[in-house]
């Protein structure tokens, strides 16, 4: 272990304890760590976007296409480079919000573009990526040599249909509709319970990870570091 790592471990341990101090009650130490987290994570995403979006997708892409036009006379390179002016212009239009409502309304154009793009993908992407695969995965054989598979497939089919029907609110849930939606709520409750249990266990494993860090990386690691120095 080197000195930067040891310093890092001590900072991480201090911040970990600061966050855990909230278990006692809201206190200045926790607030310090919480506010630090907001600042650090915001800056992290700025650097991330600057590198992977602005540099890789915009600046480098423009430079690559422009050089292919200049060096090889590629017409497509010329167009590929200059078409990037469109998202750049839209990006700058987004920033007009800085200058108040007089010009700020121009930011509606990039917003409209993004919303339109999202809506278009909301149709094609949802159908191709979610709806059809989910429906396809539900249409399963109800007769196989394995009894457990038959039971599972029937339950899966009944669970999907009844859960969907539970969310059908255009008619009152009475009679057959009421009965099926009752089955639906049973499945939904088991599902929520299972999802809850799964979430609890994932959070507990994170907790164990942090406690492990405090005991082994921080305490044992520090002792080992000074042992090697001595």
């Amino acid at each position, binding site marked *: 272990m080197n000195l930067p790592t040891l310093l890092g471990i001590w900072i991480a341990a201090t911040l970990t304890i600061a966050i855990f101090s909230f278990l006692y009650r809201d206190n200045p130490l926790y607030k310090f760590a919480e506010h630090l987290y907001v600042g650090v994570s915001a800056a992290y995403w700025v*650097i991330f976007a600057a590198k992977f979006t602005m540099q890789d997708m915009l600046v480098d892409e423009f430079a690559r296409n422009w050089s292919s036009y200049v060096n090889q006379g590629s017409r497509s390179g010329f167009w590929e480079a200059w078409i990037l002016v469109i998202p750049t212009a839209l990006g700058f239009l987004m920033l007009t919000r800085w200058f108040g409502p007089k010009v700020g309304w121009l930011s509606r154009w990039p*917003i*409209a573009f993004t919303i339109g793009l999202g809506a278009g993908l909301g149709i094609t992407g949802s159908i191709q990526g979610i709806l059809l695969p989910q429906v396809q995965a539900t249409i399963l054989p109800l007769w196989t040599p394995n009894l457990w598979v038959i039971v599972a497939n029937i339950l899966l089919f009944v669970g999907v249909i009844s859960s969907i029907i539970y969310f059908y609110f255009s008619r009152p849930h009475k009679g057959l509709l009421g009965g099926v939606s009752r089955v639906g709520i049973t499945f939904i409750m088991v599902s929520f319970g299972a999802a809850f249990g799964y979430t609890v266990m994932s959070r507990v494993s994170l907790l164990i990870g942090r406690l492990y860090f405090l005991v082994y990386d921080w305490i044992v690691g520090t002792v080992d570091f000074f042992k090697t120095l001595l």
Partner: protein
Amino acid sequence: MKRTLPLIITFLAGVFVVVTFFIPREPFGSLEQRMLVWASILGGFTLLLGIDSLIKHHGRKVARMEKDWFYSLVTLLGLFGTLAAGIVTWVKYGTPLELASLNEVGGFFWVYKWVMVPLQGTMFALLAFFIASAAYRAFRARTFDATLLLVAAILVMIGRLSMGVIPATLVLAILLVAAGIHRLLIRKPVFGAVLAALGVGLGALVLAFPQDAVRLAPQVQEWLMSVPQTAARRGILIGVTLGTIAMSIRIILGIERTYISST
């Protein structure tokens, strides 16, 4: 101009994406991907607005020395400090995501590993305690549905344990018996009897076949996650997708236009 043009842009962008999806030939084939790149670039610009808002909000608090201004100062120091770390690493190595910066105090990866990751991980770990307290409120087996929720959650938790399956299952059995007796005492005999019988049965099975209980617990968990949980989740997902499609059509056709009024 202020309202109509954005609606036209939305319509054209939306229809364009749908049309390109159905024409998998060049130049249409790659246009959808290109537009997604454009949206990412726009996202980069939008992030600047968010950061500007963050700096203004906390900067104002610090400048006026309002209540808790010190914490706003911490946010700003964290922000500018990490930005500086990123820029210095970027200039030094040609990329901010250089692994070598992990061994430099103040390097971008060093800040990421020793400040951001512990803060984020501990925040989520802290939720374990609050989830436990929420579970106490949600899981009181008052009704049949709440009991299902309780039993499913505990079975999944037991199934994901690496050790202590038998004591945990016995605790579940005792809880079920206790809940059953409580229901019997408040004159809900059928529900109480079912709960108590479930508890006694589960406890007896675990004590009689401890090896099988250890072997079966992960399988029960796996089955719960892959059959009833998947069924209900899939039902909800299909409903959400149908809603998304309906909303997308409304947006493209200009029926839904709240996104314009907010600016």
